[in-house]
């Protein structure tokens, strides 16, 4: 990719805990650590794939960035200069913030946006949900579904609004004749196109794709993936593509982050990750993909057991109970993301020995 590596979103120490209350007084007894300390940057114009098994916190993380969930801790900078981010981060790390810094931080960190600034932010960040049969209101006409964000933001009115809706429908491969229909009259693929049109309505810079193709058939999945690719080039969009399907990620994204139990275990350029997976979990994931080519007889690494409960995650490296290479240090010490080559980071104690 010859694009500039300028960051659009910079996530620092993002945490999302769901408290558990029990007893007569609903005392706060424990936390489900859905997202536990994530540092991640999303570059301008890229598609970053986020993969992991169900329950590993990938959707929660995406929705927390979009402010659909409230975060527990951490900061998310949207479209800020790197110098400013570093300056603010240094102040946060030093602790003891004065009033001026707090104000500055609340302007830069989208997790502290409120009211009008939050509404303004929503123009530039949008989402496409997993199952279009649930994410489109069955009692609204398609034209109202797509026009809704434009009306809420007060961007367009009347004739202009309708023209814009038609234009959007045409960009996603539908036409004017679909305006006055209800979602149930469409097939799954068409519904997902409507959801994409709605996300595009306010000319966003960033769209979160939350498993947009997992409810679709394979032939339709290919149509939607090609559409998303085309739109990304045309409108210079940035995607965070959440999915559990690794071959889809390989097809659409330039970089991939692998998540396990609320933490990122590996982050790399897509080609590099598939050619040289370093974390044992990534290796197992890659080897478990059924490859639609009977000639490629790859050896399987079959993990035992299930994803542990995030209520009390394993100590040390969270993957150690399922890891075939775990040693004593993995049980006690938590690994951190470290650089393992150009644009390749991994959180594992033993990646060097195994590489």
């Amino acid at each position: 990719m010859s694009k500039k590596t300028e960051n659009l979103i910079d996530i620092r120490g993002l945490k999302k805990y769901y408290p558990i209350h029990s007893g007569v007084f609903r005392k706060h007894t424990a936390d489900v650590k859905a997202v536990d300390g994530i540092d991640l940057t999303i570059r301008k114009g890229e598609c970053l794939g986020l993969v992991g098994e169900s329950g590993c916190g990938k959707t929660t993380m995406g929705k927390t960035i979009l402010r659909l969930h409230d975060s527990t801790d951490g900061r998310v900078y949207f479209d800020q200069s790197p110098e400013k981010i570093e300056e603010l981060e240094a102040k946060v790390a030093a602790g003891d913030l004065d009033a001026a810094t707090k104000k500055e931080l609340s302007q830069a960190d989208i997790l502290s946006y409120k009211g009008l600034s939050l509404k303004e932010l929503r123009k530039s960040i949008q989402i496409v949900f997993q199952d279009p049969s649930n994410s489109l209101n069955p009692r609204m006409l398609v034209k109202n579904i797509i026009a809704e964000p434009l009306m809420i933001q007060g961007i367009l009115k009347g004739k202009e609004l309708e023209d814009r809706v038609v234009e959007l429908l045409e960009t996603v491969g539908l036409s004017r004749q679909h305006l006055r229909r209800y979602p149930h009259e469409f097939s799954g693929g068409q519904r997902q196109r409507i959801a994409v049109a709605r996300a595009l309505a306010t000319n966003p810079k960033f769209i979160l794709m939350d498993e947009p193709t997992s409810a679709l058939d394979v032939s339709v999945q290919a149509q939607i993936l090609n559409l998303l690719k085309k739109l990304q080039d045309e409108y210079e969009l940035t995607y965070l593509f959440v999915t559990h399907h690794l071959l889809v990620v390989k097809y659409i994204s330039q970089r991939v982050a692998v998540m396990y139990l609320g933490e990122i275990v590996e982050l790399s350029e897509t080609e590099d990750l598939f050619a040289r997976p370093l974390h044992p979990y990534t290796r197992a994931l890659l080897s478990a993909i059924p490859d639609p080519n009977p000639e490629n007889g790859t050896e399987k690494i079959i993990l035992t057991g299930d994803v542990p409960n995030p209520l009390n995650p394993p100590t040390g490296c969270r993957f150690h109970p399922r890891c075939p290479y775990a040693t004593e240090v993995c049980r006690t010490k938590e690994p951190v993301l470290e650089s393992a080559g150009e644009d390749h980071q991994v959180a594992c104690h033993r990646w060097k020995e195994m590489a």
Partner: protein
Amino acid sequence: MDALLKTEDLKTNFYTFEGVVKALNGVNVMVRPGETYGLVGESGCGKSVTVRSMMRIVQEPGRIESGRIALFFDEKDKERGVDIVQQSDAYMQKLRGNDISMIFQEASTSLNPVFSIEEQIGESFEFHRLDEMLRETVEELDAEIQQGKAGFLGWKKFQRSQLARELASHTAYDNAVEELDAQIIRLESTDLQGNASAVAALNKKREGMKPFSLSTRILRRVPILRRYRNRLSKTIRTHIVELLRSLGLPNPENVVDRYPHELSGGMQQRIVIAIALACNPKLLIADEPTSNLDVTIQAQILDLIRKLKEDTIESVIFITHDLGVVAELCDRVSVMYAGDVAETAAVKDIFAKQYHPYTEGLIASVPKRDQKGELKPIHGTVPNLVTPPTGCRFHPRCPKAMDICSQVKPETIEIAPEHFVACHLYTSEDKA
């Protein structure tokens, strides 16, 4: 050609308010002994309806309209097979679970949330392997009584005599039923006039028969006394634990007492497999058993099915929409589209060379590990089967459609050895 199960021109319709949904449009598939047979296609292509028809469990308002489903399980029926479309419900009930078993798509919905795992798997044992279980329990009790353990008030002796009585009446019932079935099949295979009414009479008689004697049926309802069966439950429980252990479930003694919601998706799917395997079926039908599971868990389940196929089950029918799973697990595969079988071949052959444009499109539209360039999707969507396209049902989406495609349904031909395709591209050229 050797076959274990064969459908001939199978048609299943659904009578809905919108009209008649012609879900299966004359399906011909054949499963051979010792193979894993894949059925692929998009949703709404009739994969599930095909296998549900094979089990005769098509839900209302669906009905098997015409066609034959021949089973070749018995040595005697090697010639024509038993046509299960014609058999009575009682016959089917015996067949399901015993000879053919099915794993359903979503484990969480196919398990009953209000019964424990023991009760759910135990049902299968109680229904299909009762004789075996009773015999084993009686033998155990005999041994204990000989050692001089009669229990309180000779309770064990009472248990033993009652279980033995139950066994005797159940065996008698089984023998009678088997005899009747043989009679029915014999009558059916000789196409004489007046046979139909005789078969109907026999079927009615068969349905009227009860598996236990009157005294047993009464005793099973008497409080306290009916606890003689607890001993049977104990035997069944040990069998369940053994079965679960062989399926690789961690600490099965503990798992049997739990309820489905306490288990993870992968464990639930293993329980569903255990229910299907309780009676050592010859044919296992797996209807998308892994499509709701994570890849690592999917790999575990696929590995399990592969092992079972090697050890206990003769053939597996595996339904999926994931071509990757087909490539990995199956020996032969049929591609279905809108109620028709488009192409059938060995897995290696079909991935190497696709003759039907739908198969070609399907393979071109999935991302591969060594994907180069754009994916090529198939345009449009699966048609509504109330008003299916005329001729070849794929022609509105087909990039190579010709005039004849919208008029005539293509014949299935063997285009290469063991490679069958139904497409005018190959038949009309011969004619021209």
